[in-house]
């Protein structure tokens, strides 16, 4: 990434962005106060949302829903239309921002290829439960969330977690409910994280529709073979879930152009499993872990892919030659073909575009790190350095080259470092998020880790003794 490319991102916002975000903020405020009694201000916000989608296929559905909600009829189908309209606006914001990235970086992106939606299967009681709870939350508003409403999420999470096809919804609801539980009574909070909770709520409502499960990204029509060159691993976690998403370059065996892809593996966990212990939750993915820890390429054979998402099959993967992710990114990333995400996943929070940036200076100002190249600056998302890897803010501050993910939140672009080349004791070292995938390589940290004991083993022992009695 060059200085001029940073400038192309940060100089200006895409047209209409500010209006769209202000509209969303007003809707978020309405959801904070709740749909039980919609005041004039919130009625205007909802009408504004209906206006924003008035030229889309959602127009009639949303207009009717907004009328009914304002009249005090917050039933599930109207609430769903509201969530759909909010998601559509943020989907447009996502498209504009990703378009800005593609223009700035000169990145080509294959469009999403729709496949016929599967016929919805039998009515799912788990989905019905989720829809009911999410509607109840919207009617109460965040300010109205109390112990009882939060406790109601428990059975919904349990029911959705039991159905593998509903894992996305289960993981989302569990994460949202944990935050609400920590914040009740929400009425006492000085400020509510209303953008965040409305994001999670809207996505939850969409995933809880009967048609959503049918067209999960699980439906796949394409398969590929070739060489995967891992660039970086991005780690996500909340109390009961962890996900490792590997961004990689795929050189197809049939000689097609290099593709920018990603693959994700995840596990359920509990809140007391944190830090390097997270890697031990993936015993079924030894090839992927070794590829990360040893910085090796991987040969994959006949694996399903949809858009940019490769479905990971450890048994169809084989370790290949060592690969320096910095070198791979330098040579292959500029011309790699990216892919548009699933329409449902179009949200600014999902943007994570791999970039390589070199020869910059890092400054520490206003409590945050900023990368500066040729006089152009981008803030570093220091709070996204994961707990399970060796990358620290100090290493980022001492770095001169960085593999990062471009992120966008609250009106600005951020650089999330996933690997750096930094000068430590007058030597250049490369440090990657995934370095500890097969165990901690830093003696000091390993010692502390060993002293804390193996959380996963202890809990498995307890589960073995107590669960099946």
């Amino acid at each position: 990434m060059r200085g001029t490319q940073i400038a192309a991102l940060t100089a200006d916002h895409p047209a209409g962005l500010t209006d769209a975000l202000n509209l969303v903020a007003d809707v978020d405020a309405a959801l904070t106060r709740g749909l039980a009694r919609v005041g004039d201000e919130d009625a205007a916000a909802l009408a504004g949302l209906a206006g924003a989608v008035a030229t889309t296929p959602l127009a009639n559905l949303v207009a009717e829903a907004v009328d009914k909600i304002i009249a005090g009829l917050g039933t599930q189908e109207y609430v769903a239309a509201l969530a759909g309209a909010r998601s559509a606006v943020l989907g447009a914001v996502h498209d504009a921002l990703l378009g800005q990235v593609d223009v700035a970086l000169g990145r080509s992106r294959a469009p999403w290829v729709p496949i016929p939606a599967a016929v919805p299967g039998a009515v799912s009681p788990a989905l019905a439960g989720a829809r009911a709870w999410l509607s109840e939350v919207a009617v109460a508003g965040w300010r109205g969330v109390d112990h009882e409403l939060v406790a109601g999420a428990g059975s919904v999470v349990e029911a959705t977690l039991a159905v593998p096809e509903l894992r996305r919804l289960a993981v989302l609801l569990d994460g949202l409910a944990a935050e609400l539980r920590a914040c009740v009574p929400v009425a006492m909070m000085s400020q509510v994280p209303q953008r965040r909770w409305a994001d999670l709520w809207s996505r939850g409502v969409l995933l809880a529709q009967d048609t959503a499960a049918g067209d999960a990204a699980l439906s796949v029509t394409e398969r590929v073979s070739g060489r995967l060159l891992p660039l970086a691993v991005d780690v996500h976690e909340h109390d009961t879930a962890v996900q490792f998403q590997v961004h990689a370059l795929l050189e197809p065996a049939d000689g097609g152009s290099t593709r920018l892809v990603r693959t994700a593996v995840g596990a359920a966990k509990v809140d007391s499993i944190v830090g390097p212990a997270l890697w031990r939750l993936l015993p079924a993915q030894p090839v992927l872990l070794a590829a990360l820890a040893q910085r090796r390429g991987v040969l994959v054979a006949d694996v399903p892919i949809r858009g940019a998402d490769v479905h990971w099959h450890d048994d169809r993967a084989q370790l290949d030659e060592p690969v320096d992710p910095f070198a791979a990114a330098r040579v292959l990333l500029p011309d790699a073909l990216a892919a548009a995400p699933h329409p449902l996943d179009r949200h600014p929070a999902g943007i994570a575009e791999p970039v390589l940036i070199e020869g910059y200076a890092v400054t520490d100002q206003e409590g945050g790190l900023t990368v500066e190249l040729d006089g152009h600056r981008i803030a570093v998302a220091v709070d996204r350095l994961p707990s399970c890897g060796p990358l620290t803010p100090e290493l980022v501050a001492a770095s001169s080259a960085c593999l990062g993910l471009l992120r966008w939140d609250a009106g600005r672009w951020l650089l999330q470092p996933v690997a750096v080349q930094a000068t430590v004791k007058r030597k250049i070292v490369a440090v990657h998020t995934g370095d500890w995938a097969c165990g901690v390589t830093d003696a000091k940290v390993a010692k502390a880790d060993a002293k804390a004991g193996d959380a996963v083993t202890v809990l498995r022992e307890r589960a073995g003794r107590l669960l099946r009695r």
Partner: protein
Amino acid sequence: MANVDDVGWARRSMARVVAPAQPRKLVKVPFVELADGRLQGVVSSGSDTGRVYVSSITANTHAYHCSTNNNRPCGGLRGAPCKHLETLADEAVLQYGFDRVARYLRVEPDVAVNTGAALLHSLDARHEPSSAAVVFSRFLRHLSYLEVPGSTTALPELHWFPSTRTAR
């Protein structure tokens, strides 16, 4: 142009709401949580690996209890919180931080009080028997997460939950 570059916490999709739990040894206290209006958890017996104690302290009223998972009262309760409750409180402080535990129990402790056990003894607490079943079933539910199979397809919603090494 409205100032979208300088918007507050409320407009952040990635606003940090809850601090991640801090690592601690789980051998003595495999489970501790702040839920249902209580600081509650499970303490492994020192003598019998098959036995656990269920201990809890209620916020506000500061009623406490400790019993085995079969509801046999803990012998250590003699007019004051037992060692299981002390250990539970200490581990809760390790996991959540002192301030969050104190806030949850609705106490404003003296500055000299800085451990979980000390916090417990600074309370005007009283013993009040309660059923171990609720807490124990929450513990079993907690353990059951380790039996949920892993996933090998993307969970895009987890982008809202980035892992972080900084205390939130």
